[in-house]
């Protein structure tokens, strides 16, 4: 479904992604962890071409993203994205945030899109917030609206870029619960996170990145109990201690 082949990316002189080879299959939940600046967010953002790759090949849903003629808008309709800072539209209500893209991109009639938006709001547990503006919602609620917004396009893949990093500790749980449900329903998910508990419990595969390289990847049980690389062990010992 997602295939990186020898992908390299530079920001100017800075080599952010180095020879990335990665295959993600339909229905798989892949969690990417690693220290900040390791390139994990950049890798994620390449998947819907918020970032372009400098070299190599990247194929997502049979579309070659390195092909300049690729229909990126079409590709993005099938990939939901959830951001660290939510990025909800502040001038629109929760409901409008969710129904906007289905209406404008999928051309769903307003009443139908609104009905579906309500269903997605219920799915993330806050149907009563339909008419609230983002500024009136807590961080956890905003992020759940953002997840509903991504789901409303009925995507084949959901990307999560540190979805709980900007949240107060007591709100992290409610967002992870929604993500856990999604994973259980068989959504293909790529998640960049620092939540090791979530990785251990929900991931099919954990990927550890450092200095722009994939250092290690494994099933979570094996990955956390028996890390192969010295660098992974050092990282885990630092994040798992507290």
């Amino acid at each position, binding site marked *: 479904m997602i295939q990186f082949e020898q992908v390299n990316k530079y920001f100017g002189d800075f080599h952010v992604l180095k020879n990335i080879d990665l295959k993600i299959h339909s229905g798989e939940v892949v969690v990417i962890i690693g220290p900040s600046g390791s390139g994990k967010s950049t890798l994620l953002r390449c998947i819907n071409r918020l970032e372009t790759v400098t070299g190599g090949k990247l194929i997502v849903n049979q579309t070659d993203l390195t092909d300049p003629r690729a229909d990126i808008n079409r590709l993005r309709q099938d990939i939901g*994205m959830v951001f660290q800072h939510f*990025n909800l539209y502040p001038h629109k209500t929760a409901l409008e945030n969710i129904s906007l893209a289905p209406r*404008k991109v999928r051309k769903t009639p307003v009443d139908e899109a609104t009905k579906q938006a309500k269903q997605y709001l219920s799915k993330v547990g806050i149907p009563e917030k339909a008419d609230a503006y983002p500024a009136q919602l807590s961080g956890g609620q905003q992020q759940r609206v*953002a997840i509903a917004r991504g789901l409303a396009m009925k995507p084949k893949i959901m990307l999560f870029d540190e979805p709980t990093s900007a949240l107060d500790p007591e709100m992290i749980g409610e967002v992870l619960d929604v993500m856990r449900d999604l994973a259980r329903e068989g959504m293909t998910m790529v998640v960049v996170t620092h939540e090791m508990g979530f990785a251990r419990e929900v991931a099919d595969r954990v990927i550890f990145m450092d200095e722009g390289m994939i250092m290690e990847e494994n099933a979570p049980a094996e990955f956390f109990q028996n890390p192969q690389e010295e660098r992974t062990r050092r990282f885990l010992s630092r994040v798992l201690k507290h």
Partner: protein
Amino acid sequence: MGDFSLLAAYKQEFIDGFLTTLSASLLALVLSLCVGTIIACLRLSQVQLLEWIGTAYVEFFRNTPLVIQVFFFAMGLPSLGWNISEFTAGAIGLSIYTGAFIAEALRAGIQSVPRGQMEASRSSGMTYIQSMRYVILPQAFKIVIPPLGNQCVNLVKNSSVLAIIAGGDLLYAADTVSSQTFQINLTYLFVAALYLVITLPLSFGVNQLERRLARQS
């Protein structure tokens, strides 16, 4: 200071001038908002050529006198065989000139909308134009209300440029009346007051709008 009763005889000139100023300003306001929005989008375009066109437009029209631009439309175009009325020439000149300033205000407003907004909307499959229209511009307009208000007030005052191409506006009426009655101070003071009749409510309205939008968010 003067004899106000002398001006009463020219009531019709003042009314006509006032209405001409008002309608030229309104027409130019709508047009310059359209021009400004388009030019601002060009300036922000990823396509180098479009960005260059937008920049060239702004720098040319912002940095040359409005009077010259209006002269061109009023006398230059007719000399090329394209006849337009003084009113139209004035309104077009004002729109093109003010459009350059509005484009700059809009560009600043658009750039102050956080980058994540464009990323979120593009990620959902919306095109650049859809993202602009439904996500970025509504937020940018809120930010640019104060500078846009300034441009509106300037536009009304700048419409007095119609006087020098015999456009029949307020200032033109004042010139006519003062040269016939020799009540120079009185006439121009009276006309200045008539400009205030337009610009003061405008300023007030912009302030109210700004306050209301601020309360919303």
